[in-house]
């Protein structure tokens, strides 16, 4: 009891402490009476407090359970959300060029590659757009392009993310025909893939979200393989 009292006194604010100590001094022996009184007294209200604590704890748990998904899923300015938005845009241009190639080329290998890229990347756009919906986020944002990536904003030129074809290059591609078209498409797509791989590797470094890492890694792997194929096709076409 004495120890208890002293321990508590130690936590008392300064103003109150001296008086308490002085009062406690002469009575160190403390009547057993008081001890007895404390015992039963603590249990009654203690049970109430315990119940209160349990209820409070349950409410806290409930609230946390309801809100945690909202707090712990990627936020509006997160790398995951930025990646999903920006890679969707990046992919959209690859789809545009590949659909064009599928329509215009007369080279079966180029046509197959174009179909592969267009269908794969359009599917991946769907996946990323679904993430944003699941996370309760808009597919649009006031964040600048690539802002989620360290030094990312500096990689944006004329509003274009790394590897993206310029308006002039897109117009050139639309106008090109035959072997010239095939070579231009393959070169533009190789640059596009290099930029895309850079972005995918960027998010892999930043995220611990498994599905984001998995898709980004599949982009890196798939596009690296496609770059090898593009290089071999360019060699066959007598270009590089």
């Amino acid at each position: 009891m004495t120890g208890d009292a002293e321990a508590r006194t130690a936590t008392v604010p300064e103003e109150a402490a001296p008086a308490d100590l002085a009062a406690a001094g002469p009575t160190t022996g403390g009547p057993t009476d008081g001890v007895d009184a404390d015992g039963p007294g603590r249990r009654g209200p203690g049970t109430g407090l315990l119940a209160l604590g349990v209820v409070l704890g349950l409410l806290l748990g409930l609230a946390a359970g309801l809100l945690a998904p909202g707090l712990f899923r990627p936020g509006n300015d997160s790398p995951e959300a930025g990646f999903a938005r920006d890679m969707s845009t990046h992919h959209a241009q690859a789809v545009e060029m590949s659909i064009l190639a599928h329509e215009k080329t007369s080279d079966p290998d180029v046509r197959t590659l174009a179909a592969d890229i267009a269908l794969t990347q359009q599917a991946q756009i769907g996946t990323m757009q679904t993430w944003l919906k699941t996370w309760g986020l808009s597919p649009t944002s006031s964040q600048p392009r690539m802002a989620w990536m360290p030094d990312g904003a500096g990689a944006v030129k004329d509003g274009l993310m790394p590897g993206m074809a310029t308006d002039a290059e897109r117009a050139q591609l639309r106008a090109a025909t035959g072997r010239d078209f095939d070579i231009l498409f393959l070169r533009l797509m190789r640059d596009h893939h290099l930029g895309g791989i850079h972005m995918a590797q960027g998010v892999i470094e930043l995220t611990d979200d498994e599905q984001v890492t998995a898709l980004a890694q599949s982009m890196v792997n798939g596009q690296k393989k496609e770059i090898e194929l593009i290089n071999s096709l360019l060699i066959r076409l007598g270009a590089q």
Partner: protein
Amino acid sequence: MSISTSGGEQRRPSVVSTGKKAPAGDKPAADKATGGKATGTKPAAKTASGARVPAGRTGGKKPQQRRPVTPVKVSHGRSWGNIAIFVAVGILAAGIIGYGAYAVIQNGRSWEDKAAAIDGIVNYRETDPSAVDPLPGKESHEPGPQTYKVNPPVGSTHNNAWQNCMGDVYDAPIANEHAVHSLEHGAVWITYRPDLPADQVEKLAEKVRGNEYMLMSPFENLDRPISLQAWGYQLKVDNADDSRIDEFIEALRVNASVEPGATCSGGITATGTTPRDNVPGDQTMPQGS
């Protein structure tokens, strides 16, 4: 003994009031001989809490009967620490819940709400659905020129082919019949009066270039220098620096699509206000224009 006990009785309530600062510190004092002094003075000042027990159970003559009484007060005095903890936990919990709710609500704010909050925006989906629904007697997709109720149009009947909206910046007017189809796919179409200063045109172009579901073109006979269109929505502003332009784009680009997932590539890239549907080879071949 009875004195000290009663002292404890009344002294402790006094502890309750001072207890905020020194919950347990006074206890020893209460149990001691000093209680005698306190009994005389402090209880009087703190009758509020002290009075409860004496009032109800003063009749108790035996010390044993008083004991159950005393604990009630004692526990009150000692529970302040616990109460403080619970209050702290409660405040913390309220903070967490409050922040969580705020975050969820902010994230969950719908694009419709964001659009509605833009000053001056017109939501034709609500105010005039006839500007969005198919023209009288026509399907949603019809070949050839169409006459629109709103200028520039924000919806209604359009051609099968859409205008390419892969961040395309067109330097000449385009066909409404294709642009409206782009809106249907979720594009935001920025139109500007041909006399808009070049630096402002460039500022608008920077918002478009590189962004799919965006397109831009000059437009004759606009009543304001700049007009933005999404499916069913329109906002007219006077200056390219107007912050509502970005708000409009953020709220409605992609979101306003009535065909989610529909793309912007594969559309007509040629300019000219005459619709080009069913012109072989024209959809992606600018040299054919």
